[in-house]
């Protein structure tokens, strides 16, 4: 059965056991019932503060972790332990840190060639080399870089190697986990543009995880906002920025420093009180209520569900 969505995530849960004393353990609910869907060629941005579970969503999606509950469908087919190796030909990942995600003892050619080896995507050595050179060209690396090692490259170029490796199996979907956070501003723009070009050329869909809201807004078609393991709001990128509805999204957007002095002077920052609560000791009901100024009794009792408020704008909040 095929559907209009390339990737569907239904009520995904990922709990990690944490020992809290001798023979005692509790569960850290890193991801607690997340659902979303991505169309072919679409970019879904996933934003939230550190510890909210956005990286875990990306990793659980690709089965780098065994999910505690819920289901992931790829091309309408449920992802299980059995077919994951096969399905990873269709979905890949680019990691945040271009310094630790490349093997320092492998040449660039071998790093990019490894997925080809794993999935046996070539018949002859010559074909392997051709494919690798083609991939390097695609991400803007020179052919003479092939025999060098990762440490010889700058951050931006390493990220290009990581992207070429993800593209090697010709995937339809790539999870990008903070791919530009470690890069300088001028290099960030180069890599962001490359992501956009590759999408135009190859039609890949991205789950773009980042905390830089300006970049996410720029690259995404839709954006999902996470807070403590749950999606609190999901909408079209511009709609979310222009008409945020969840109190957390509103304060998050108002906190982003805008590189424009005139706008900053006029703007009023909504500063949230306190820190993010520990995911091991979450408030009852809505997780955000401890920092929310509109919190009522109802928020303490029951957790709000994501609700359609029209135009594909979903919000999880009791207040309207």
């Amino acid at each position, binding site marked *: 059965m095929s559907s209009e969505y390339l990737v569907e995530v239904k009520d995904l849960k990922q709990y990690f056991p944490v020992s809290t004393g001798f023979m005692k353990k509790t569960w850290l609910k890193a991801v607690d019932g997340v659902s979303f869907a991505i169309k072919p060629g679409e970019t879904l941005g996933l934003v939230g*503060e*550190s510890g909210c579970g956005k990286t875990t969503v990306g990793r659980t999606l690709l089965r780098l972790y065994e999910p505690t509950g819920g289901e992931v469908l790829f091309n309408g087919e449920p992802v299980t332990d059995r077919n994951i190796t096969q399905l990873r030909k269709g979905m890949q990942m680019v990691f945040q840190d271009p310094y630790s995600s490349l093997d320092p003892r492998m040449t660039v050619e071998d790093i990019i060639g490894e997925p080809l080896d794993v999935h046996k995507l070539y018949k002859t050595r010559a074909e392997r080399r051709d494919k690798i050179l083609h991939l390097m060209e695609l991400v803007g690396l020179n052919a003479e870089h092939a025999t060098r090692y990762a440490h010889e490259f*700058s951050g*931006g*170029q390493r990220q290009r190697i990581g992207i070429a490796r993800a593209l090697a199996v010709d995937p339809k979907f790539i999870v990008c986990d903070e791919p530009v956070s470690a890069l*300088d*501003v*001028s*290099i*960030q*723009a*180069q890599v*962001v*543009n490359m992501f*956009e070009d590759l999408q135009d050329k190859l039609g890949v869909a991205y789950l773009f995880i980042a*905390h830089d*809201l*300006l*970049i996410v*807004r*720029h690259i995404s078609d839709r954006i999902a906002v996470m807070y403590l393991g749950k999606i609190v709001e999901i909408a079209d*990128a*511009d709609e979310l*920025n222009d008409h945020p509805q969840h109190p957390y999204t509103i*304060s*998050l957007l*108002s*906190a*982003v*420093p*805008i*590189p*424009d*002095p*005139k*706008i*900053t002077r006029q703007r009023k*920052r909504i*500063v*949230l009180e306190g*820190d*993010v609560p520990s995911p091991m000791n979450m408030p009852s009901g809505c997780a955000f209520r401890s920092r929310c100024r509109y919190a009522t009794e109802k928020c303490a009792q029951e957790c709000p569900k994501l609700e359609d408020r029209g135009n594909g704008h979903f919000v999880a909040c009791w207040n309207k």
Partner: protein
Amino acid sequence: MSTQNTNDYVLQVEDLHTSFFTDSGEVKAVNGVSFTLKPGEIMGIVGESGSGKSVTAYSIMQILAETGRIVGGRVLFKGEDMSGWNSKQMQSFRGKHCSIIFQDPMTSLNPVFTIGSQLMEAILLHTDKTKEQARARAVEMLELVGVNEPQRRIKQYPYELSGGMRQRVMIAMALACEPDILIADEPTTALDVTIQAQILELMQDLQKKLGMAIIMVTHDLGVIADMCDKIIVMYGGSICERGTADDIFYDPRHEYTKGLLRSIPNVTNSKERLIPIAGTPINLLNMPKGCAFCSRCDNAMKICLTEKPQEIALSDTHMASCWMNVKKMAMENGKGGETA
């Protein structure tokens, strides 16, 4: 400059050169940086990693790594040349007159001492308060920076606090002796957006309350636009442009500043394609003869390759060192000559 004039400044940096002597040669991290800071002013230094912005800050405090040395220029504190100061004088300068907040609140606190003892250390060193008074002052400072339950917190260790809280403790420590200058080296880079907003708000509040001058070192143009009265843009160890926030953001006159502003997403039209700066940051081991930026500059001319551009005043507040401005001025003068 008359002596009366120099005393208006709390800090003057004149033609500062700082180098690191490594196995592969001399790395010229700072190449002739000059600026002045008035009391109560907030100045931003912006640039990429390796542009020399942090090294400039460390040079003022004289807390460079072992291989680093100030090889030229001088730093004046309230008109007094600091280059001849001995280590004892420097020690009383640090903390009492000038404090620094580091980027990473996770590693800049000592994990084996309580928050209280680390805060009191600075106070006891620089004032003649008793231990009891110092403790009271520590509690007062924690309260000032918005740490809840300060009485309990001073007995806690850094690992018991969140990142935002630790950065508040760092700020409390830096301000405990009411310094004239606060250097903030990427104070919010390691923090989340909502916590960053809290810390920036706090710094602005404290600046108004206590009136110290702040040097804000960052790569985040948003933070700079938000916080600073005047801005210095650095590239390859030199200042390429300086001016007010409006000068820099609305009338950039150095090609690097222009490129930097083009490479961040447009606030009003977020889908507009980014225009990156081509190439990679320069290698400080192998500095070009001419303008440091010319290998990445789209408008580079012949002269950019061979000669370093001088800093030219474009208005009372705005200065840039780019040959494009010289060319433009020459053309305008030429035209003026023709009509006259």
